[in-house]
């Protein structure tokens, strides 16, 4: 066990814990933002640099501060370590820089982006960015590509977090996409146009922090804050079958994995659950999904959500707000 103090709050954690994990254990007020780290994906993190923190005391044994800011997602705590996140001016300054870099080539097209409302970059920009851009150069653009008939890649919005590559590598059995080229010409691509076909390929949509990988069965159907998320499950022979189904009226517009408070899916789901089960009757409804009050998703309609009166296992249609059967 080792003691670590983050922004003045001390916690004792197991050896080998990273600064970020320890910060998350303390709570969201000290947890650094992340754009590329994903606790469910091995070797993720380190790329985006939004989680940089200052180590003002290395450890009890060697109290010297670390000379540079470190990526909290990839730095292991030492006993007696003291870390500054929001209490460090250096961190705030560097993070502002990182946001500016991430937005340098990112289109500010939130009004027409399907991810708006549940975009981690939007949140990051809101909390840590500047109101004005300092670049007047043309942004990098790419054509939209269909990678299979269910997933669309719009590389223009990608921030190269590598999460989707790691999903393909770690939870599917045949990676066909990756990062091509280098530097600011890097792009996520299959190189020769190719469909990502795999039972679990849809998870690349869930892990994408921005609107680069979107669900073609959902695109432009609704702004996310006009939909109502409900936890549901079904018996699935491929995955856990635990999902969130997103309603508009009584239509199921989309199905996603369930996300925790850090925006990471709790368990990956299969494409059958995601793309092929779009009827209420496919699912056993559990309860409305808990959504943070800070999220725009909770701002609309949500409080009017009708809670299902009782939960039964089969073919129940618990939410009937309007007439008609959506089958």
């Amino acid at each position, binding site marked *: 066990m080792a003691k670590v103090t983050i922004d003045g709050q001390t916690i004792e954690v197991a050896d080998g814990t990273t600064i970020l994990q320890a910060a998350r254990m303390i709570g969201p007020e000290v947890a650094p933002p992340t754009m590329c780290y994903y606790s469910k994906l091995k070797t993720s993190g*380190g790329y985006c640099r939004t989680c940089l923190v200052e180590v003002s005391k290395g450890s009890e044994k060697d109290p010297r501060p670390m000379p540079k800011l470190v990526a909290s997602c990839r730095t292991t705590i030492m006993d007696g370590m003291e870390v500054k996140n929001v209490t460090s001016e250096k961190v705030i300054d560097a993070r502002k820089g990182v946001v500016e870099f991430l937005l340098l080539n990112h289109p500010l097209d939130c009004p027409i982006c399907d991810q708006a409302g549940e975009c981690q970059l939007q949140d990051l920009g809101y909390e840590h960015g500047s109101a004005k851009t300092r670049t007047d150069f043309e942004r990098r653009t790419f054509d939209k590509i269909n990678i299979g008939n269910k997933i669309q890649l719009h590389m223009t919005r990608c921030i190269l977090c590598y999460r989707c590559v790691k999903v393909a590598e770690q939870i599917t059995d045949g990676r066909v996409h990756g990062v091509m080229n280098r530097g600011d010409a890097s792009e996520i691509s299959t190189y020769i146009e190719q469909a990502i076909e795999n039972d679990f390929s849809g998870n690349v949509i869930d892990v994408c922090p921005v609107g680069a990988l979107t669900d073609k069965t959902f695109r432009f159907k609704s702004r996310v804050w006009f939909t109502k998320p409900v936890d549901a499950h079904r018996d699935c022979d491929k995955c856990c079958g635990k999902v969130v189904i997103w309603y508009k009226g009584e239509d199921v517009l989309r199905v996603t994995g369930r996300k925790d408070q850090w925006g990471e899916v709790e368990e990956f789901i299969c494409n059958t659950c995601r793309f092929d089960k779009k009827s209420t009757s496919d699912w056993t409804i559990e309860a409305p999904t808990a959504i943070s009050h800070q999220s725009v998703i909770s701002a609309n309609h949500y409080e009017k959500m009708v809670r299902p009166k009782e939960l039964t296992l089969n073919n129940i249609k618990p939410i009937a707000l309007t007439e008609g059967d959506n089958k």
Partner: protein
Amino acid sequence: MSKKILLEHINVPGINTLAVYREKGGYASVEKALKTMAPDAIVEEVKKSGLRGRGGAGFPTGMKWSFLAKPEGVARYLVCNADESEPGTFKDRYLMEKIPHLLIEGMITSSFALGANSSYIYVRGEYFYIIKILEKAIADAYEAGWLGKNILGTGYDLDLYVQAGAGAYICGEETALLESLEGKRGNPRIKPPFPAIAGLYGCPTVVNNVETIAAVVPIVNNGGDWYAGIGIGKSTGTKLISASGHINKPGVYEIEMGITVEDFIYSEEYCGGIKNGKKLKAVVAGGSSVPILPAEMILTTASGEKRLMSYESLADGGFATGTMLGSGGFIVMDETTSIVQNLHTFARFYHHESCGQCSPCREGTGWMEKILHKILDGHGTIQDVDLLWEIQRKIEGNTICPLGDAAAWPVASAIRHFRHEFEEYVKNPAVIKEVKHYHNMHNLATA
């Protein structure tokens, strides 16, 4: 007089062949090490020598070696970094071309000291003819029994291979080099773990520069104390300097650490002064990434002393008035040089070479190049100069590997010492027309 250790026999005809190299005492360090020394004793000698990494970082080699983990039953590797790509640096190429066996000898002795049985020399892809030279030299060394099984009957086995890169400056960063050697993109790894614990194929690995490995040969032959007696202070031994730019005698020079910068630039023995009788304007002393210094600062430290060619003296004054020895890539600029245009070539270089993994470097290097381009196009503003300063500040120290710093420092130092030139460009675009756009003032016909 120059002190020649590595290049002692450089002018001997046929020194590139095994036979002549042997005649001149070549491979003596292998005999001495394998037959009479314990591996740890060699590490001790290297520690005593004070040898510091010659690739640019200047980290003490003996210390790096002593960090190498030695778990039972796990292979250890020595990898030679011959991915020489820092603009202004061409010393390793020279060494490998002229005396390939010196590197091979150093690899054998060093591999023995570290307990490696397979070692690799990673050569930048563009140096194909060097690869050919090394492959031939290695074949000869195998044939003569210096490589392979049971070398000199001592029971020590070593295989040595050359690996060709394929065009990527970033592979000079040791973990990117290891990735590349594993057949992957040259993306630097996130550290820790360091290569000494988990390097090539996840095994303990030491990565050393060509010149560093070559220096192990005289150190083993003559002892660490002997080497430590050469040079000045913590800058022991000799250093190969690649001299280029507006000088009369560009080339590779071996210097004893501690000669004055002035001597190096102006004496006939080295650079032979500035070309065409022009005045010295600025120097990039250690390869493109180190801070550029104006003439008066490179020749004299802030305290008024003559600046010396050593790690400490070149760094004297920090970045405010000093720079770094780096890789020894010494680029000299005369009075006609546009610092802004030269900086643009550096900025373009780092933009081109960023691997793209982490956001500050991926986005920031391109942004800096574009702004410099804009200034050179005559559309720049004072705010752009300030923005450049801001961007480099936001990159420095915040990236996965030192490429971010390497991209930031030239920009910072150019603005720090030559801000007036940037201002001239933005205030008076007519200057640009005079200083032929993007081009320098030198007529090739006189070259």
